[in-house]
């Protein structure tokens, strides 16, 4: 048995899914897409039932990744019943999707969720008309209180008939459906879809096209518009029958402060800075603790074992990778996703995206990109993992470039430790200024050259609500495990390779080879190149390695201010760390990862070289 949950975004679908399945949820990407599909199991009367939580969509006829996925999923027809979740406080708009789902002809159950919210707003719901018109079971639920959730699975098991509903379309469309039926014996659903240009029967599509052109020349609307308007009007009628009595309720509208320039923008900035501070302070504190504990309880005891040199080198690389990975995983990835989930589930994310939309447009992304970009100051790894929040591949590519350039907390350590410590506070700020200018320029250029269409914003402002703590924790946990299982092995492999290279003396050869170049190009000694290379593992290691190789922690004694300044600028720009590269590989693929890596290396060397020429 397999049931699928379908519904608009933020109708409480995930909450219902969670309450029905509990533990053991498998999150997988639908083949060939970045859209996630959640699968879970539930047991009812000793029968195993698989539940699939489809992504929230507004329509089955759209072109977004999510809509295409849901459409393909329903077309496969290997679902025993569809559980259509509807938000009763926004009934009319939700019914539009429900009618489309009903037309797919799968057995279905309708869940009218958020009954508690509706009651609070003075809306009285009568499920009768929907039950009669669609001919399917209708359940009134309140997922946030767990009310009536237990009735869903029995109802889905009992559902064997598809909905009998027929949307009354415009008479031209109805005539077209009849003639298409005669020409190629297509059923109503196929004909309606063919008229909108969907389907895989070329003859039917051809015939439908001719008829559609004819209809469009008579109306002043496209066939798609007519069909959508008919569905909306039918939804309006049903909603009128279902919603009994709507007491006009004047409640305070939080959007009157959240979406105005003032105080909306200061609030947005406050939230962004607040998040950053939390990630920064709590994150770096936790990271320090984890790295410190690892040093004391793993690395030092391991070194004390006195193993043969090769084994010791290998073991150290593995431990260093584990240290770097865990130092990112718990403090940053987990914390970051707790924050992101709270922002998303509370509905604030859409307000932030609305306010930031125009500014983000200049650099080729929509408003939602403001969140990953800000949180990248804490750590690039989860910021890259969250670029999947962006809707088009174009935006994800631009965001990957920009996010990897944002100075994360580790790079801040370098700027603070080397530049502020040995050169001066003003110089430290100038490093930030240089990086921000480069990010801006990169964004402006990328928004012009990146292929793909720029989509404008058409976004529903989802209602503000209190996020569910368990759901937030679950999301954060699933990201954390994803990072541990996918990024960690790559991190380990990379670290072992670096360790072996050093053990067999390749590093020394490399140092001698590059010394003339680093001297000529950047004015830096050869061992600084080694430090840069180790910075790939964990950015702070560039600083530590430099101190070790220079033989003193007082770097000011061995290197000039200019050399330190250039070293810091190059390190900050140069190659994202290994953990960032591994998540980049997963999110945007090897080609873009390579491009990002090469771009940042080239940029680091170029800017460092330019500074050496100008300042020396």
């Amino acid at each position, binding site marked *: 048995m397999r049931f699928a949950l379908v519904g608009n975004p933020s109708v409480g679908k995930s909450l219902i899914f969670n309450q029905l399945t509990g533990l053991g949820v498998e999150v997988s990407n639908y083949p060939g897409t970045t859209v996630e599909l959640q699968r879970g199991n539930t047991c009812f009367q000793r029968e195993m039932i698989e539940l699939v939580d489809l992504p929230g969509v*507004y*329509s089955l*006829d*759209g*072109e*977004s990744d999510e809509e295409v996925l849901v459409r393909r999923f329903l077309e496969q027809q290997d679902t025993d019943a569809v559980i259509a979740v509807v938000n009763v*406080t*926004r009934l*009319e*708009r939700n019914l*539009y999707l429900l009618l489309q789902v009903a037309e797919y002809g799968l057995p279905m159950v309708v869940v009218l969720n958020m009954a508690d919210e509706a009651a609070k707003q003075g809306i009285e719901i009568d499920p009768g008309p929907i039950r009669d018109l669609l001919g399917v079971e209708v359940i009134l639920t309140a997922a946030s209180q767990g009310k009536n959730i237990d009735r869903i699975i029995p109802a889905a098991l009992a559902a064997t008939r598809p909905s009998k509903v027929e949307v009354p379309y415009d008479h031209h469309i109805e005539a077209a459906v009849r003639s298409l039926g005669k020409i190629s014996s297509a059923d109503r659903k196929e004909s309606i879809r063919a008229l909108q240009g969907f389907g895989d029967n070329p003859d039917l599509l051809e015939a439908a096209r001719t008829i559609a052109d004819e209809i469009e020349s008579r109306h*002043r*609307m*496209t066939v*798609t*518009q007519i069909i*959508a*308007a008919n569905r*909306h009007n039918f939804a*309006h009628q049903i909603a009128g029958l279902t919603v009994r009595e709507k007491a006009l309720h004047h409640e305070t509208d939080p*959007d009157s402060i959240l*979406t*105005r*320039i003032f105080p909306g923008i200061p609030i947005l900035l406050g939230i962004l800075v607040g998040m950053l501070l939390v990630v920064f302070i709590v994150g770096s504190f936790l990271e320090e603790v984890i790295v410190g504990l690892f040093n004391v309880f793993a690395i030092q005891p391991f070194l004390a074992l006195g193993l043969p040199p090769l084994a010791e080198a290998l073991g150290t690389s593995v431990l260093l990778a584990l240290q770097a990975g865990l130092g990112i995983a718990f403090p940053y990835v987990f914390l970051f996703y707790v924050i992101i989930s709270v922002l998303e589930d509370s509905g604030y994310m*859409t307000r932030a*995206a*609305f*306010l930031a*939309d*125009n500014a983000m*447009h200049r650099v080729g992304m*929509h408003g939602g990109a403001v969140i990953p970009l800000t949180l990248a100051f804490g750590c690039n790894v989860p910021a890259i993992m969250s670029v999947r929040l962006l809707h088009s591949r174009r935006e994800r590519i631009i965001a990957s470039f920009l996010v990897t350039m944002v100075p994360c907390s580790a790079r801040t350590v370098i700027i603070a430790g080397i530049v502020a410590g040995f050169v001066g506070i003003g110089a430290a700020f100038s490093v930030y200024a240089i990086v921000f200018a480069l990010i801006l320029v990169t964004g402006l250029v990328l928004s012009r050259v990146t292929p793909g269409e720029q989509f*404008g*914003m*058409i*976004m*529903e*402002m989802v209602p503000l609500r209190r996020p569910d703590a368990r759901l937030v924790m679950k999301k954060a946990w699933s990201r954390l495990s994803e990072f541990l299982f996918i990024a960690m092995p790559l991190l380990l492999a990379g670290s072992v390779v670096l360790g072996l290279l050093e053990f067999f003396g390749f590093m020394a050869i490399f140092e001698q080879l590059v010394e003339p170049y680093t001297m000529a190009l950047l004015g830096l000694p050869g061992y600084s190149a080694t430090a840069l290379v180790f910075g790939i593992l964990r950015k702070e290691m560039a600083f530590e390695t430099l101190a070790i190789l220079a033989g003193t922690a007082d770097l000011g004694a061995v290197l000039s201010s200019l050399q330190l300044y250039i070293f810091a600028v190059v390190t900050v720009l140069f190659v994202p760390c290994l953990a960032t590269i591994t998540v980049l590989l997963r999110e945007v693929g090897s080609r873009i990862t390579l491009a990002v890596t090469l771009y940042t290396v080239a940029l680091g060397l170029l800017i460092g070289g330019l500074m050496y020429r100008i300042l020396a």
Partner: protein
Amino acid sequence: MLPSTLEDYLEAILTVTGDGGRPAGPQEIAAAIGTGETAARATIASLVEEGYLERMADETVRLTGKGLEVASRVARKHRVLQCFLTEMLGVDADAASKEACTLEHGISDETIERLSSYMDGGAQPPPGRAGRCRGREACTLLDCKEGDTVRVAMIRGPRRNRRLLDLGVFPGEVVQIRRKLPNQSVVVRVKGCDIAISPEIATSIVVESCP
């Protein structure tokens, strides 16, 4: 009625001189028509003879009252036709302009009036320049104030932005403007839900009954 070539000349002179107030030289006119200067001089001479143009001190000419009237009428036909072709039929702007240049000479004044009122529900188009679609200053979502309630009349480029349709923004639907930022991003309330729309999309939503 004048031959179409002569009408084209008058229209071109009106266009290059802005409103017909400034005199125009033969080179300028020839360039606007896309013909040789010799041919242009010959045609200009005959238009002067017929009293549509008057010669100024140097070689330049200016539209007379009679000439201005003909030129404005042809220009208006061009405008209305081009507007109809691009906005209603979705013809590409360049092709529509060329097509309008041919049609403008054959179409009657009455048909143009009816076409114009068909497109804008009776409102008289304000005078605009030839060749650009200014015949009918359509109100879009961007022209509305916060708090306005308007009806969607038309969506330009209906095949783009499918999501608007799915969220309930389609011709005939009444929407309320909930928020309009100084940067022109808007939030509209439709079917009880708030929808944020960026300026470049809001400008393609033509609405009725806004101030």
